[in-house]
């Protein structure tokens, strides 16, 4: 039949569409969130300025030698940071090599592989790993882990001594306190972060993608490689970056187990030192130029973190182009 009148307009919910004041509050919210975003910039800028200011006496005293030499002798005012940079990088690499497979495995377990009953307990396991304070990891590392590892390192170094490259990487005898032990402790500390975020990402893989992979006849592992990993790459990268940040910036636990011997050694079982650890160890008794030098180390760690982030992004971008 012919309709001569327009159908009645649907009832308009009042709050959603009234203009004027609404537009203002929308703008205000946007402004507020922008402000919070900028807060990171402000705080970091603040930190950089304040730290560089305090570190300046050390920089001007040693110049470029601060970055390029490895001799650190506060009592004669010689400051070279290379051995600490080495320690930081090496322990972070060891930590990541150990933590990333572990975390991805845990995340996969929690999102795809675990039987229902085990999901909650293992999830609590990860939460418990995160709940342990860093100082407790450090103390347990020194009192329990390091002595035990000393024996393990002995046996490993006995096995690797005939092999050319490995023998210099893994030689004993060792006190158990050193770069590799620090890497292990850091791995334990970094795992919860990477696992949690990665697991969240894995959980949101669309079920359809998984079903599609199965429908095409893939095994579980192949489904994971086809549906879960590609979807999650960005999130996983973000998680790993946070892990890197934590591994490089971890102060107390590293300070207790790393051996505190500023040296550049290829021996992973040997003692070393890292930037954060030496700052923690020496700061309380430092005065004057020594204090400046320690803060300068902090600035250098800053710069190192920036460098690592840039390199990671470049690598990812290249990877994306190729894929």
């Amino acid at each position, binding site marked *: 039949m012919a309709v001569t009148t327009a159908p009645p307009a649907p009832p308009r919910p009042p709050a*959603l569409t009234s203009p004027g004041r*609404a*537009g203002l509050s*929308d703008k205000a*919210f*946007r402004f*507020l*969130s922008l402000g*919070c*975003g*900028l807060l990171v910039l402000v705080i970091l800028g*603040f930190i950089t300025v*304040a*730290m560089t200011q*305090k570190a300046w006496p050390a920089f001007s005293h040693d110049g470029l030698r601060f970055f390029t030499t490895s001799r650190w002798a506060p009592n004669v005012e010689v400051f070279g940071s290379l051995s600490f940079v080495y320690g930081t990088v090496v322990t972070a690499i060891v930590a990541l090599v150990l933590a990333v497979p*572990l975390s991805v*495995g*845990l995340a996969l*377990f929690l999102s795809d*592989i675990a039987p229902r009953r085990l999901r909650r307990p293992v999830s*609590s*396991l*990860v*939460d*418990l*790993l995160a*709940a342990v*304070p*860093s*100082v*407790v990891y450090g103390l347990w590392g020194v009192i329990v882990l390091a002595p035990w590892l000393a024996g393990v390192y002995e046996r490993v170094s006995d096995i690797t001594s005939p092999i050319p490259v490995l023998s210099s990487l893994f030689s004993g005898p060792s006190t158990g306190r050193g770069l590799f032990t620090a890497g292990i402790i850091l791995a334990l500390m970094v795992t*919860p972060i990477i696992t*949690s975020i990665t697991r*969240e990402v894995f959980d949101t893989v669309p079920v359809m993608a998984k079903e599609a992979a*199965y429908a095409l*006849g893939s*095994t*579980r*592992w*192949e489904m994971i490689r086809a549906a879960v990993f590609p979807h999650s790459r960005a*999130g996983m990268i973000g*998680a790993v*970056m*946070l892990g*890197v*940040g*934590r591994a490089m*910036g*971890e*102060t*107390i636990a590293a300070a207790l187990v790393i051996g505190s011997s500023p040296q550049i050694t290829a021996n992973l079982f040997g003692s070393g030192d890292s930037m*954060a650890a030496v700052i923690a160890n020496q*700061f*309380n008794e430092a005065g004057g130029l020594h204090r400046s030098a320690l803060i300068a180390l*902090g600035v250098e*760690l*800053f710069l190192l*973190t920036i460098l690592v*982030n840039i390199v990671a*992004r470049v690598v990812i971008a290249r990877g994306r182009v190729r894929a």
Partner: protein
Amino acid sequence: MSAMLLGRVSPVRRFRNRLAIGMVWLSVATAAVPLAFLMVYLAQKGAGIVDWNFLTDDIPISSRLPGPGMGPAVLGTLLITGMATLVSVPLGVLAAVYLNEYGGNRRLAAVLRFLSDVMAGVPSIVMGLFIYTVYVLRYGLSGFAGALALGCLMLPIVIRSAETALKLVPDELREASAALGARTSRTILTVVIPAALPGIVSGALLAVARAAGETAPLLFTIGTVNAANPSLFDGANTALSAQIFGNARQPFEAAIDRAWGAALTLILLVFVLTAVARLVTRRFTVR
């Protein structure tokens, strides 16, 4: 279902599958074993001393004296970490909102994302020193100064994990809300954030767990006390993490016992907080 398909699968692929699944189970065991050892060790050392008195009595002024407690440290940790959470989580979530909802691929957002990762790498002791320089020198030692230092540590974690959580909320939800006529801010507040809540809460919990366990940032900002100080702004304070570190470095049995008791308390505290928060999220999340 997979068993049905696997019948037709080549042995190589089956082997790879078994291997991968096996590795996954192995990773669970690898995480569980050191943790089990650690917890057993802690329980042996700390369980004997933790009781109600331990949690509420004042810290003995002389550390060689045996006996409880860690009351002021428990209170301090709760207050300081609580305040740090109050400061960093809302700010962090809002920053993540900017990055994901408004910033997108813009230059500024990319820079902020980058800087947030950089901030995650700042050593905790440097954060403490920073707050010391800009706040403590002006207003003196206080629990609030410690909270600020911890908040700075927490911020990058909250931002990163919240952004990831927000990113994972499907656009369909946003579009549906917009189609109903809601403004962006309303959409974010009532649709996107609730949908991302499990991820946001989980990220916030990671940040809280980290903050509660940090010692270095508190070294220069909160001082120490032996009696409970319920005020965050007035006077020095103490926290479990600082007490653990200080007491474990003493030679006296009594102090070491207290250190491990404090360690056990702190772990339980954080773990209970985590469990409660996850429960609350699960209860209130719309699925």
